[in-house]
């Protein structure tokens, strides 16, 4: 106990968050083993993880770097397609799922990072609304290009076309891997809840360690005061780009998880469009901008909520909106903040223990 107290606040917070994730994992495994968990819930476990990863990674851009990006679904899309493409091509040549999956995750992350870096070099000169608009457009462009992309393979190698499948001019027996708007089909569904949790923990540790290091401090310095950061010799462009790239790479990881959780991967407005980017932003804003644990909690609650409100049929999105507003008020209203301070869980626990101690003391005295 004293050892935990000695650690600084951020380290303690991280251990608590990791603890929560692990407890959640163990709890789910027990429920599954006991056969209590519904199929609906079991199907949601992996989405919970990739939404959490997306929320955590976007929080790096929005909360830590302080720039508004609306193109996060675009990076997820790149990760999803490059990862699935790799798996689809190597299913026969690399039979070991673990190795194949690891490489797929790396490829997804690297390609998303590459695009993040490329876009970053161009757009990080912009700030605020302008950056948001450009990243939004980027996300849409990625989605639309992938919808028009055809890639096939035959004995001569890869064929790429942006028109239609017949334009690939493949030899007999060629295999179309990316089939335009029909996407990538037939990828093996390798993602399991365990893999998803492990990747969530990995992404969480990477981002939290980054924040609490020299580079992270530089990134936050830029957010807090750009002019002052420059005056103490911090290279603004470099660290902005670093944060943006890492954020994109992590979104790519979430994309790989996503694409290996479904059997046919298609880029639609629903999964990689503007709405998705906004939804990730909602997770970040409601969880608290800059609050990494909050991002995960918000992602979990707001993913489960619409599913469990299905019995309300058409009213469920109405309730969803009300919950968003209530959460916002609960998080930021000064009166609510004071109320939470006065009624904090920690204080209640402490007062309960205190009473017990005093009772014990009192009874001890009586006995004497």
């Amino acid at each position: 106990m004293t050892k935990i107290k000695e650690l600084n606040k951020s380290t303690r917070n991280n251990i608590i968050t990791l603890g929560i994730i692990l407890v959640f994992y163990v709890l789910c495994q027990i429920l599954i083993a006991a056969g209590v968990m519904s199929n609906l819930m079991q199907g949601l476990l992996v989405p919970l993880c990739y939404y959490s990863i997306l929320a955590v990674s976007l929080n790096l851009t929005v909360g830590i770097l302080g720039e508004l990006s609306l193109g996060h679904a675009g990076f997820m899309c790149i990760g999803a397609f490059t990862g699935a493409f790799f798996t689809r091509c190597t299913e026969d040549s690399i039979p070991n799922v673990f190795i194949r999956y690891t490489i797929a995750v790396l490829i997804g992350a690297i390609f998303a990072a590459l695009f993040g870096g490329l876009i970053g070099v161009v757009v990080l000169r912009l700030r605020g609304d302008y950056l948001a608009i450009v990243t939004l457009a980027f996300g849409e462009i990625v989605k639309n290009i992938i919808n028009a992309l055809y890639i096939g393979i035959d004995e001569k190698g890869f064929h790429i076309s942006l028109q239609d499948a017949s334009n690939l001019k493949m030899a007999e027996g060629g295999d179309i891997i990316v089939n335009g708007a029909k996407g990538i089909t037939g990828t093996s569904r390798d993602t399991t809840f365990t893999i998803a949790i492990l990747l969530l923990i990995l992404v969480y540790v990477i981002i939290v360690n980054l924040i609490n290091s020299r580079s992270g401090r530089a990134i936050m310095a830029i957010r807090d005061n750009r002019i002052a950061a420059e005056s103490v010799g911090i290279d603004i462009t470099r660290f902005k780009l670093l944060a943006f790239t890492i954020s994109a790479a992590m979104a790519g990881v979430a994309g790989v998880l996503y694409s290996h959780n479904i059997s046919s991967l298609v880029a639609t407005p629903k999964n990689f469009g503007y709405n998705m980017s906004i939804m990730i932003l909602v997770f970040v804003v409601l969880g608290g901008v800059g609050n990494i644990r909050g991002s995960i909690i918000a992602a979990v609650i707001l993913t489960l909520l619409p599913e469990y409100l299905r019995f309300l049929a058409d009213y469920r999105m109405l309730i969803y909106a009300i919950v968003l507003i209530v959460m916002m008020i609960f998080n930021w209203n000064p009166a609510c903040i004071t109320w939470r301070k006065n009624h904090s869980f920690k204080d209640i626990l402490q007062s309960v223990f205190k009473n017990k101690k005093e009772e014990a003391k009192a009874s001890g005295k009586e006995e004497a």
Partner: protein
Amino acid sequence: MEMLTVKNLGISFGGLRAVDSFNITIEKGELYGLIGPNGAGKTTAFNLLTGVYKPDTGVITLDGKNITGLSTIEINKAGIARTFQNIRLFRALSVLDNVKIGLHNDYKYSTLAGILRLPSYRRIEKQMNEKAMDILKVFDLDKEAHLLSANLPYGKQRKLEIARALATNPKLLLLDEPAAGMNPSETDELMKTITLIRKKYDVTILLIEHDMKLVAGICEKIFVLNFGTELANGLPGDVLNNPEVVKAYLGE
């Protein structure tokens, strides 16, 4: 030995010549005061020296090295650090982290070492903490090290800004109205601190100030700027009694 030599420095904003033929030579270890009425171009001169604005004319030499036209970052690395007239702290970060950001370029480890928590991370973070606490002790801020910098009282925020600038290990420190908004006792304390850091860190100081008690009390030389040009330059006794200076400040 000359620490800073500025020759014929000037900049125009449209038709306004904000600073014109600005010449100053500061010897190593000197404490120079830059004064002048409001709008005289004092802060513009600071912005020129630190690369925020690029000068139209003139040459700036720091410790024998020509730094004219370099970026703010390069000028900081060359050895000029500054504070701001309106305090610019990293408000959401702790007092300690503010100073550690000042140490950014002197204590390095890679981003990867930070993410993977390699031994170099632990070793250098430890050195950074020690160094930052040393600096904070000089400013009597060590007890507040883990507070958010935005929660410090005003006078301490000003001190923290100086501490952060000092952490970049500068040869020349530019202070833009360090005593602005301070009460007399805070100003007295600030004067003591400035004298102390000058000795301890062997740093040359150029400061802008309106508080004549502070200027006359600690500055060894004073430069008076009016309408972007030199009005007087020399020892405090001579400059402050110069009728031209009195006229510029108080009117006729």
